[in-house]
């Protein structure tokens, strides 16, 4: 079965040109000294040493914690929705999926401003609470507001991804499980969940990666003190202008993520074996 193997060739060439080469350019900065002129570089590991300081380590730990939490929430809240959607008639399914996606086509900054509007001290929600005689609650610039913004923004990706796996699932497996006396809970965990695992993993990736490197949402909903790895990289590249350190941080981040994904892939493999 070797037909179609050549189909990867266009992308192979494309990805070398437009993904690998820019990455090498970035890598070059990470290992060189201050100054944006590539031609006069001198090799150094200083940029990596600098990252080992507790400030920066705290930032990366905080980012991972936030990314993982956002991913877990999106998974727990998104899975049932994807599941319900996948049980509908086919045309309703694509309609609902579009309905879930459409908000993402409205500019993210605008949606974030809308949340600020809803959550701020004199905002819409507090005004409504005031009408009911409830004291205003501080929601802006907290963990809650940042998480809300991230989940609202990223959950559609989780839903699309899980739904792709769940739709067109071979129902004979489920029937077989039922016939063999499995209760609904067993059927779900041993059959449906396992079969949807590729979609879940894809969704986890699509939520986790942007969550960990996001900077606009934490900045606006959490304030400048909500320092995450994305903000750190962005500020190194733009406001500080230290591309070398910025490149080093992004390489460290990429490495950390790659390791994590290897682990996730393990789970995937184990899941397939169970199957």
């Amino acid at each position, binding site marked *: *079965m*070797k037909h*179609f*193997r050549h*189909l*990867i060739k266009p*992308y192979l060439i494309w990805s070398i040109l*437009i*993904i*690998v080469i*820019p*990455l090498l*350019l970035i890598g070059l900065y990470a290992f060189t000294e*201050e*100054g944006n002129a590539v031609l006069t570089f001198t090799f150094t590991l200083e940029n990596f040493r600098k990252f080992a300081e507790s*400030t920066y380590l*705290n*930032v990366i730990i905080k980012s991972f914690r936030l990314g993982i939490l956002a991913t877990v929430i999106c998974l727990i*809240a998104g899975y049932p929705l994807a599941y*319900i959607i996948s049980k509908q008639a086919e045309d309703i399914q694509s*309609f*609902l999926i*579009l309905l879930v*996606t*459409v908000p993402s*086509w*409205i500019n*993210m*900054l*605008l*949606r974030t*401003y*809308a949340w600020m*509007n809803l959550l701020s*001290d*004199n905002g819409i929600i507090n005004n409504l609470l005031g009408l009911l005689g409830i004291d205003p609650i501080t929601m802006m610039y907290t963990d809650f507001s940042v998480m809300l913004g991230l989940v609202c923004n990223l959950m*559609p*990706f989780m839903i*699309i991804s899980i739904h*792709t796996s769940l739709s067109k699932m071979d129902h004979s497996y489920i029937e077989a499980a039922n016939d063999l006396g499995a209760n609904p809970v067993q059927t779900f965990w041993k059959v449906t969940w396992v079969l949807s695992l590729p979609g879940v993993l894809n969704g986890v*990736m*699509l939520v986790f*990666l942007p969550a960990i*490197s996001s*900077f606009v949402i934490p900045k606006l909903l959490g*304030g*400048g*003190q909500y320092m995450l*790895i*994305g903000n750190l*990289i*962005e*500020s190194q*590249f*733009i406001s500080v*202008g230290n591309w070398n350190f*910025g490149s080093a941080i*992004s390489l460290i981040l*990429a490495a950390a993520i*790659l390791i994590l994904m290897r682990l996730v892939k393990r789970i995937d493999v184990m899941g397939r074996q169970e199957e």
Partner: protein
Amino acid sequence: MKKKKSIFARFYVALCLVFFYLPILVTIIFSFNSSKSLTRFSGFSLRWYQELLTNTEISKAVYVSVTIAILATVISTALGTITAIGLSRSRKVIRELLMEVNNIPILNPDIVTAIGMMLLFSSIGLVKGYFTMLLAHIAFCTPYVITSVYPKVRNLDPNLANAAMDLGATPFQALWKVIVPMIKDGIFAGALLAFTMSFDDFVISYFVSGNGVKNISIIVYNMTKRINPTINALSALVILVIVVILILAQVWPKLKKSRLNRIPPRMRSFIAGAMVMLVIVALYQWGAVAKGERVLKVYNAGEYMDLSLLEDFQDEYHCTVIYETFESNEMMYTKLSAGESYDILIPSDYMIERLIKEDYLQYLDWDMIQNKGNLLENVLDHSYDPGNRYSCPYFWGTVGILYDKTVVDEEDLKQGWDLLINPKYKGNLYMYDSERDSFMIALKALGYSMNTTDPDEIQAAYEWLVNQRNIMEPIYAGDDVIDNMVSGNKAIAVVYSGDAAYIMSENPNLEYLTPSQGTNIWYDAMVIMRECSEQKLAHEFIDFMLREENAAANTLEVGYTSPVTAAYEEMVEGDYAEISAYIPDDSNPRSEIFRYQDPKVKALYAELWTKIKAEQS
């Protein structure tokens, strides 16, 4: 039992949709706001829709966003799908390697991808514009398609295609008639993701495009100074269009069943043809400037000019102005350092000093600027550019404290900057999320120069700021402080005088304080880049901006203080008579102008600032 379940399911779906659509609803409601605020509704009006229709910049951006998103989606979906199919048949080593490479654009923060591609395009000499933006979008969309399609392909029975070919199908037929239909859910999901990513992208688009090509996101982000509801109006229209499409899509299949069944091949070629037309039109639109017409490229901060002035200028001087905007001086510098060139820039004092040092600018020929005499005397000849050899002032002002008269005691104002560490106002304070401005405050409060390079003084300022963080719990805000203060969310904020003038005109409870310990006096000025080929036109532009009536229109629209005497006086006596922040107080000898910072000192400030923000107790 079954019924109960379905009610619960419906309720859950509705709940999720409310969650997703709540911000959209707010966005739409505020598109009808009669004032500029995005957080306080002051009355119903259609003025933003009117503005939307007359704003050619936005309509061009819609065109760019839509065509780029469609083209990038189609191309990346095709590329990603065939790659995913090919991957499933490749050897394990190649497969894993390519999958890992494929993950890079997904896992890298946007800014890294953006800088990488910007470097690539600059180094191979591609002219930045529509085409480079399209290439970049295809590059970051394709990985999403592959990750969506690949799991579906992997689950296919590999014998299916074999069977088809045994039965006489060509490989292409086997692909198109057997494999693709089996994985169409994955393709659909991938295309949806690709479209979403492309349509909402800002960072990558900003750095890889140029020559005036902007998408909607670029416009929105550069409006952050003063986002106005025009964009909300646009979003409302986008939603409307989508709703119409969705309804059509519901009706479409029924129509299709009846009679459109035989058309698809023709439809397909029609769609393909339409795509090609779109590209040609797009390339034409930006490739073609009327022959012999002079072109001026202007690069200014977002929401920092009355755009009708640009149209007047083009009419009067028979030229085309390509107008681009940036969010901060540093963003502008990042683009310049990748080799992008413009004719006129409008940066701030310290950045002008840097640009002079690094040889980006050319001398102004003041003989060609007849309106020089219109300028206020005290805005000329400052340390960043002695004798104004390179720069002509555009707006100027100070940094100060904006406070709520109903909350802050008159008595406490004497503290000046130390008001910001008065525990009485704990949790009621916005600082400005910028290391230079924050350190300026601390250094001034301690009685040092804000341009100090003395490590002990910097250390003392760092401790002042750490102390402030611990006792005051301030919010380090960006330009969102403007809307927050208009709505009165907190009592004290550090702001630029020009922003203060606007905020005070919207919220009469506020007053502006220029602390007695001295502050930052700043100047934004027009400069001409060395590469400028239209020197005469560039000087004509500067001269045009100094005309009294133009300067007046500009300052009225933007709200920052004009350096042109007549415009300044007109505002002080008229529209801004009640607003103290419009008149910058430059009389205090302890006030200073920011100077160029040595990279080492700059890095030190940045590092300390990160520590202050990140190590929250």
